[in-house]
Structure formats: structure tokens, C-alpha cells
């Protein structure tokens, strides 16, 4: 087929371009991933006692994970569109992580020197990143499905951003089941789980997102 005939064929009865493709794919992906993550956390680990919500601890976790998920969602949506600028969402996601790190460090300074290590490790440091990663998997699958319907040209970065998005949604879900209250615990172990999801995404991106 000549290129000219291909052009005629593509243009013929083409109709208007589909609109809001990123939103149409990412909305069900994140909503479904969040629902499965929350169901997983509540069903598998169980909810924290309601009175814990009187402490700022759970709210800090939910705020951190929610803001990071929002920034990462923006980032993924940009990476799904060829040549769209990604610096602003990338900086936003970085700023959320840095802010959480500063909050954790400041809170740690208020703790007497001898107890700092115990504060950071809490009683569940080993379970936390693993749980966040596991609870992120439904969103990771959804975000990859969404990206496969878009046109990412930077596959590793797109995979990483999808992983961070999934990790943040996983962290949000885990926060409903995690009774650790120290901001420094959140800054280290939640971030580790989110980072692990990001690395997994970066690893899978070049393989699964080719088109």
C-alpha cells in the first residue's frame, strides 16, 4: 500500500479524536486499585481502633499518601502523552516526599536521643514496606493497563511513576490498618514501600509498556 493510500484510509470517516483519554483510563484504574487496596488492608490485616483517629498519626499517613498519589497521578497522565512536559508533576511528587522527610526528622528531634532508634523502627518496621508493596499491586496493574491505552514514550520513567502512584495508593490503604503513630516511622518505612513499588514499576515499564 502506498503511503498516500494509507493516509486516505486513515482520514476516511475518521471522525473527531477521542477526548480525555488519560482521565477515562486512569480514573477506573485508580478507583479500582484503591477499592481493592482498602478491602485488602481491612479484610486481611483489619482496621485500627477508631480512637486512634484522635491522634494526628493516621491523618499524617493519609495526607502524605493522598498528596503523593495526586502528584503521581498527574505525573502518570503527563507521561502517557508524547512530548508533554513532566517537570512540574515530578517536582510536586518530590516535594511531598521531602516534606514528609522533614516532618519525620523534626518529630524525631523532639524524642530523647536514646529512644530515637526505637521510634523509627516502631514494632512493625519489617512488615510495613512489604504490606504497602502488596497493597499497591492492584493499582500497579491498573496503572499499567491505563498507560497501555495511552502513548508513553519514556517507558522506564512511566513505569516508575505508575509504581509511585500505586505505592502511594497502597500506603493510603495500609494507613487504615497500621497503628504506628510516629511521623519518622512513616517517613522511612512508608516511603520505602512506595519506593519499592516505584522500582518494580521501573523494572516492568520497558517490558510491558512497549507499543
Amino acid at each position, binding site marked *: 500500500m502506498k*503511503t*498516500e493510500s*494509507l493516509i486516505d*484510509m486513515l482520514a476516511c*470517516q475518521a*471522525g473527531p479524536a477521542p477526548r480525555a483519554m488519560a482521565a477515562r483510563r486512569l480514573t477506573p484504574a485508580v478507583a479500582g486499585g484503591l477499592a481493592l487496596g482498602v478491602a485488602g488492608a481491612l479484610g486481611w490485616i483489619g482496621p485500627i481502633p477508631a480512637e486512634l483517629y484522635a491522634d494526628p498519626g493516621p491523618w499524617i499517613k493519609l495526607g502524605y499518601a493522598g498528596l503523593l498519589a495526586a502528584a503521581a497521578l498527574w505525573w502518570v497522565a503527563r507521561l502517557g502523552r*508524547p*512530548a508533554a512536559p513532566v517537570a512540574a508533576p515530578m517536582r510536586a511528587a518530590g516535594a511531598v516526599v521531602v516534606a514528609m522527610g522533614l516532618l519525620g526528622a523534626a518529630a524525631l528531634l523532639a524524642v530523647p536521643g536514646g529512644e530515637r532508634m526505637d521510634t523509627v523502627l516502631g514494632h512493625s518496621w519489617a512488615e510495613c514496606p512489604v504490606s504497602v508493596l502488596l497493597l499497591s499491586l492492584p493499582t500497579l496493574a491498573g496503572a499499567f493497563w491505563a498507560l497501555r491505552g495511552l502513548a508513553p514514550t519514556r517507558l522506564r520513567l512511566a513505569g516508575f511513576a505508575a509504581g509511585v502512584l500505586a505505592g502511594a495508593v497502597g500506603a493510603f490503604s495500609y494507613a487504615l490498618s497500621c497503628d504506628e503513630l510516629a511521623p519518622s516511622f512513616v517517613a522511612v518505612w512508608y516511603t520505602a514501600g512506595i519506593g519499592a513499588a516505584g522500582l518494580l514499576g521501573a523494572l516492568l515499564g520497558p517490558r510491558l509498556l512497549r507499543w
Partner: protein
Amino acid sequence: MTLDDARDDFESGLKPLWLLAQAGDETAYREALRRIAVRLRSYLRRRMQSLPDDLEDLVQETLLALHLQRGTHDPALPVSNWVLAIARHKLVDLWRRRGRQEALHDPLDELEDHAMPVAVEEGSARRDLGQLLQELPEAQRRAIVLTKIEGLSVAEAAQRTGASESAIKVQVHRGLKRLAAKVKEESP
């Protein structure tokens, strides 16, 4: 005229056509794709000195990808950046398929080594998309032939085949996607 001026000219000529095309203007879309094909050919030719036989195939593969992904263009951004980002992606993918050795070559170095530009007849592809079209599942092939080659409206094609209008649209889209996938399988 500098290279930047040429780029601006391309963009300023293409943008209004492209916006009409995105809104559903078929004539504007055809003209926009023609201009894009010329730009793609010169963009890819400079970077494919070592694979001259693949040039027109890659132009066609990129046009097909642009069509399938046209919903991802943000009207606030230049069309040419979006087009060339997809072309670069397709080029890198071709290099990867041809093996790492090729991918490591800097395309601009190639340009100096082979100063003689390769003459390529416009629009001559080695791979025949018409042939690949025949290999699609019957419903998809028929939907594409009726609406995109014979030029029937979706409603007319639905009447002719007895399928619903949304089914026709889905078959056309799936068929073109499968065609794009076949294109990749055919050039390992």
C-alpha cells in the same frame, strides 16, 4: 531560512489543520497527515542512513500510530513536538528490534560517514499494508473496508452488516490496532 524558522513554518501551517482534524474535519485531517508524512520522511531519513530500505515502512508505521494515539495530543502543545516524539519512539523501537549493535550507533555520526544521501522514492513501502489488512479477522476487515476504504458512514456500514454502530466503531479501532501490531511482527 534557519532550521528553527523551517520548524516554526511547519508548526504554524499544521496547527490550524490539526485542530480542525481533531474536531472531526476529514479534509483537514487528510491534508495534515500529508504534511506530517513529508516531515516524517525527512526526519527519519536523516536518522536511518543505515536502514534506508525501512524508511517508508517506518513512515507508515508512525502514521498508523499517530492515528491510533491522536487522542493523546494536548491542544495546548505544539503538534510537531508530539509527532516527532512518537516518530523517535518508533525509530528507537526499530533499532531495538534490529539488535543492540544498531541502537548504539549515533545517528548523526552516521550522517557524516555516509555523506551520500539515499534516494528513496516517496511512498514506496516494502511491506504491503493492503496485504496485512487481508489477514485481519473478518468482522474487523469488513468494518475497515466499508468505512475507511469504500467511505461509507458508520450508520451505512451498520445497516449493510447488521451490526450496531458502536460495534462498527469498535471493530475499526481494534482492526487498526491489530494492523499496527502485525506491522511490528512483520519487520523483526
